[in-house]
């Protein structure tokens, strides 16, 4: 279990680092997916098989596909990569790296020097237990999550609308009803 964890962990870390340093968006996305898959393996190693499945299906699957769509829509080319390289001058990394180091030291210190609090057995946790928790004590929060997704959906629809399509629609159907309704007030 430990070996699996370490190997997958190293892969995840390396892939993540490549994601944030990579100039080509498509490559970066692939690295990110790799990283997510590696994290999923870690989940499995820690006994959270259900979470691992979700990580693969939802994260690496659904969410990343959204990114891929957008990358395709943006029509990125070699020029983008060149510009990206220009934006990633080493000088820019100095400041963030310093603070990253400070934060990392503080976090690691809190976990190690601050005191060990035990280990992980890696006992598998059944999906049943997770479901019982979600629809037991967490049921109201799950409801809230539903509203969260609804709100996100509405926002995405409102903001992501393509006005060209709409203009065509308007031309076909005359003035939009909303304007009329607004004037009726």
């Amino acid at each position, binding site marked *: 279990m430990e070996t699996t964890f370490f190997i997958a962990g190293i892969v995840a870390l390396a892939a993540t680092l490549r994601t944030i340093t990579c100039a080509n968006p498509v490559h970066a996305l692939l690295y990110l997916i790799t990283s997510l898959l590696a994290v999923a393996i870690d989940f499995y190693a820690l006994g959270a098989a259900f979470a691992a499945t979700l990580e693969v299906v939802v994260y690496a699957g659904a969410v990343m596909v959204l990114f891929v769509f957008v990358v395709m829509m943006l029509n990125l080319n070699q020029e983008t990569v060149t510009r990206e390289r220009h934006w990633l001058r080493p000088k820019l990394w100095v*400041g963030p790296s310093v*603070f*990253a180091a*400070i*934060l990392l*030291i503080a976090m690691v*210190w*809190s976990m190690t020097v*601050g005191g060990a609090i035990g280990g992980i057995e890696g006992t598998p946790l059944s999906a049943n237990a997770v479901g019982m928790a979600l629809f037991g004590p967490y049921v109201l929060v799950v409801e809230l999550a539903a509203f969260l997704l609804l709100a996100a959906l509405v926002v995405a629809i409102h903001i992501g609308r393509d006005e060209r399509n709409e203009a065509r629609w308007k031309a076909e159907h005359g003035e939009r009803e909303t304007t009329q309704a607004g004037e009726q007030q």
Partner: protein
Amino acid sequence: MSLLVLTLIFPLAGAIALSLFPRMADNAARTIGAASVGLAAVVTALVMVFWGANGGYPFVQTLWQWIAVGDFHVNFGLYLDGLSITMMGVITGVGFLIHLFAAWYMVHDLEGSPGMARFFAYMNLFIVAMLLLVLGDNLLLLYLGWEGVGLCSYLLIGYYYQTPANAWAAFKAFIITRIGDVFLAIGLFLLYTVFGTLNIQTLLHQAPQVWAQGDAMANVAALLILLGACGKSAQLPLQTWLADAMAGPTPVSALIHAATMVTAGVYLIARMHGIFEIAPAIQELVGVIGGVTLLIAGLAATAQTDIKRVIAYSTMSQIGYMFLALGVGAWQAAIFHLMIHAFFKSLLFLTAGSVIIACHHEQNIFKMGGLRKTLKLDYWLMIIGGSALSALPLVTAGFYSKDAILWDAVANGHGVLWLFGLIGAFITSIYTFRMIFIVFHGEEKTHAHAGHGIPHHVPLIILAVLSTFVGAMIHQPLDGVLPSGAVEGHFWIELVFEVISSVVALVGLGMAAALFLGKRQLIAQATQDGPGRNTWLFFNSALGFDWLYDKVFVQPFLFVARGHRRDWIETIVNVVPGLASAGNSGLSAVQSGRLRWYAMVMFAGAAVLLAVLMFG
């Protein structure tokens, strides 16, 4: 007794309505402005009746507790006793008459330009603040009203702010009275530190128990209160603002700078009489300040050319009488004179306003003359008001009030102050009738159009009636609130002193007639050049106090300020705004608008915060 609150609510509602609709029609503004104060006056009358019917005991209406955090409690409480009900009567009664007159006056003064609603909004707000001042049962509420009337006074003096001189006059009034306010505020802090309360009745009750007669702290507290009163009431050494305050519209001068606000100092000292009684040295000082001010102001009034300035100096002088009365312990006489003075002085101011409008905004008395033919009503009103001011015997109200003060001064053993008062009475007669004779007699120099209409006549006539002996018959329910201070003398002795002061007033009248009724050559020659001219100029500038203050305070201050423009003291003083400015620039630079930069600031902030939390 919840009626009492209505006296505050009506004018307040008026002020709010007027300020929310600044573009309302002039007629609506006039109606709201005058009617709201009129309603307040009606309510005041009802309050008086009920209060009297219930035996006239002091009455506290605690509306609610304003703030209570820890040991600090301030109530929103109104206190009604003989003193505050007298003041209420003056404020709402005379105030209403002046508002009514203003409804006539402002139409002619504004001549169609906008600002009617603004004027009445300020005026109504003033009434609210003034009522709060006299009704507040604690010093914090009193101070709130005190600052409120100051603010309204400032706004109204600078009402015609387009003229820079008016704005400067407003500044001057604000700054000089503010000097007094600062002392008063320090006085309040001192009282709170010593007694742990700001409730006036509690303070007056505890003061004699805490402080021995003549206690140093009591003296300091009384002195601070006195300085506050001096600022508001235009008494020496803070008297210089009042004459310039005449820049405001004439009804303002009548309401604020004659009948009510300037007498707030007298009210304050009378209200805090318990403190002054255990600080006799300061009480003595009150009398001396009053005596000196009444002489200075009287002399200044004899050499003015502006009709409103003459009356303004006479106001200062009459308040001097009230201070004198307070100083000699004639508490009731002081408040009596306050009320009578409100009647005849607002009459004089309003009549002056009527004359000014009749003469097409002319205020210089030497450009008027012979007006008794065209302005018959104004002439007789001015005679009545002037007689009351000069305290002509028996028929005028001023005779009874001023005589009481003079008699109390003698009877309480203040011979010198009595002499001051007597000389003052003589001067009063001279300048009053000088003004009347110059304006209404002699050759006609301008063509005047007499004012007419109910809002013009009614207030003037009512005030004129009150300025005669009728006004003196009003009984003030001050017994038990203020020590009477009156000393019963032998009938004949009192009579002798009354005759003396009557004779003095009449001699003054005669002298004014001799000097100003005929060709006025004597005065004209005497003041043409040489020492006569210098004396005239000296008097005209109110004994040069403006000049003196300029030389003693303003110039040295400017000199020091100029000298230190670029040195280290200035640098230290400039550090504060400099720091603020630098802080603003520095922090604004962080607000670059760039998301990456914002993320970076947050990243750095989080890193530092968490590192400090871990290793700190």
